Every structure is written in C-alpha cells, then in structure tokens.
C-alpha cells in the first residue's frame, strides 16, 4: 500500500475541494485555535493524514465511531493515521468536543 502524507496549503486560503485536488503533494493538516483546518477534506484511499497541533492547548483526533483515536497531541506534536477504506470519517477532540471535522476517503 502506497502511503502518502497530505495537508492544507495555507490555512483557510483554499477550499476543501481544491485541497483534495492537491492531496498528492505531502502536507500536514492543521489544528489551530481549537479548529481542524480544513474541517472537511477528501483524500484517495490509502492516504496517510498527518495532523499538526499548532495550539498551546493539548488536543486529540478521535473517531466519532471508535475507528481510531490519538493519544493526547501536545503543542507542535503530530498524529498520523492511514485511511485504507473508502468512507466518511467524522472525528472530534476528546478534550474539546466542540472541535469536529471529517475526512472523506474515496
């Protein structure tokens, strides 16, 4: 399985769709000001997503239906997860559950 890392190019500057189109370019997905940025992204099957916590607060990336869960992600630390199966994956922060986002895998 080919693993790829991906991310947002300039937070808020591009749409989720545009972001998906650039998924072949390895970039991280950001956590900033208690938000996952971008909050909705689409990636090809087999993609490894990396989240980078830019907050001074600790966060998690926790699947809403229990499929995956990070440990505590401290400031400037990362979490990665590989999405092998197509579907829509909702996730949230177990410490700040107002933080919600989705990954769509095609």
């Amino acid at each position, binding site marked *: 399985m080919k693993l790829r890392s991906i991310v947002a190019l300039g937070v808020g500057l591009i749409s989720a769709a545009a972001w998906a189109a650039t998924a072949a370019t390895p970039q991280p997905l950001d956590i900033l*000001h*208690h*938000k996952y940025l971008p909050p909705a992204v689409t990636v090809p099957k087999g993609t490894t997503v990396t989240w980078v916590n830019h*907050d*001074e*607060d*600790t966060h*998690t990336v926790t699947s*809403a239906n229990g499929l995956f869960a990070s*440990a*505590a992600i*401290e*400031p400037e630390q990362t979490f990665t997860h590989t999405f092998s199966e197509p579907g829509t994956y909702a996730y*949230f922060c*177990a*410490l*700040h*559950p*107002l933080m*919600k986002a989705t990954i769509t895998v095609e």
Partner: protein
Amino acid sequence: MEVNRRGFMQCMAWAGTGVLWTVTGGVLSSCTMASSSTSAAGSFSFAQISDTHIGFNGPANRDSMATLAAAIARINALPEPPAFVLHTGDLSHTQKAGAFDTVNEALKGVRTERMFFIPGEHDVFGDGGKEYLARFATGTVGGRGWRSFEYRGVHFVGLVNVLQYKADGLGNLGREQLEWLEKDLAPLGASTPIVVYSHVPLWAVYPQWGWATGDGAQALGYLKRFGSVTALNGHIHQVIHKVEGNINFHSAMSTAFPQPAPGGAPSPGPMRVADDQLRKLLGVREVRYVEGGGTLAVVNTPLA
C-alpha cells in the same frame, strides 16, 4: 455592611485579590476583606482546589508542581484548617503517566481531614475514567464518581459531567445521574443549605467554548426550591461569580495556568501572561459556613 448592586460590583472588582463575599439565603448581603476568622460556634470552612493539571508543561506555566505547592501552602496558612477539601477536577493534564501518583502525593501535604474529588475531562478522556474511578471514586455512587454527603447540616453534592462529553460539545450529567440527584434531594427540607460542585460549570458561562453543561438546567431545576444553593466549578480557570435566583455560582481559579475571559481570545486554552502576573491568576478558594444563618462566604485567594 449592607451591599446593594453597586456594592456587589465593588466586591467583584476585588475578586482577584482575595475578597470575601457573604451570602445569606442565596442573597449577597455583605462584603469584607478576607482576614476574618471562623470563630463562630458551629461554623466551619472547607477549601476548593481545582485544575491542578499535573503534567502540564507549556509556556503558560513551566512548573505546575511549584504552583500546586504554593496553593497547598495557601490552604495550610488558613487561620483554621478546612474541614475538608474539594478538588473539582483535572487533577492531571491528559492523564500523563504518573500524574495521579504525583498529585496524590502532593495533596497528602494539605492540612485537612479529608479530600473529595470529581474528575475533569483530562482525567478520563483516555480510558473512559477507568483509572480515575479506581483511584479516586471510593465511596461514590456505584463507584461512578458522583456522591452526596452531609456536613454539619449542609448537604454537599459532587456531580460528574465529563464522562459523556462529546455529543454537543458540552458537559453532560446524563439521565442516570440526574435521576439519582432528584432522589437524593427529595427528602431534604427547603431550608437545607446546598453546595453542589462539578468540573464543567452547571450554568452556561460560555457555551461557544463548551463552558456549560448541556443538561445542567435540569439539575438546577431540582435545586430551585432550596433557599440557599452554592454551585462551585472549575474547568475555566478563572473566578467568575453569578447570582441567579437562589443559586450562587462560583468558578474557581486553576493552580496550573489561567485561561482567557469568555470570548476574549480566538479560543480557550492556556493563556500566557508575564511571569510576575502568573501567580496572581492562579489560586485556591476557601468557603465558610456559619451555622444558623445559612451563610456561605466565598474567599478566592491567589497565589501572589
């Protein structure tokens, strides 16, 4: 001294520097500096410590053990030892390995008879509360973490609102705990002073940041018939006081790091302040009860 609304606001202005406000029958009635002692017969005091976040090590505070030690020293310097201490959650920062041991050892240095705990989300998020409940929930209802107890005519209720903490982004008590609360309060006369404590505020401090309990209004509904209700919480790392009907709400300082005022920053979280300001924003709380008057006096004491 009688205090009107203007006087109340003057009291509030002092809240960060160690002021006492006195509450009788749920109504603020006097205000003095925090130097009086609990000499009245039948009176007692207890302390609240909150959000010790042991394991936190960020720019907002590089030594949360030192500030915890300072907080313990503040409690131990009270004119009379508190009858007991309530810890209102987030003992640990993200359940870091060894954090529960460390905080447990440190709190053995508190000069008091007993400590009561409730969890914060940092204490339970990783394992659903398994370790916390095994270590700190002895004597609670079904080992689930919540409890009530009587002390010299005052009814204390400790509630857990961080174990169902995802659906709407707010704290939640859950149906089972609410049913227990209703039954727990049912036999009590309306003149019984009530102190209810939780981690996340039961009142809607700032729902946009999750600083509220989704089903808190139902719990507060059960408390409406009582003449004097004092609701203590942690979670938001700052002193905020509000009176709503018969209920006095008091949010407590952390011993580890301050957070911004509601809406005062892009997001909540550890707030960096100048080194010489940090200990002015961290602290502990003493609550005094004077028998017969239904009076609860709340004193917030910063570390510096």
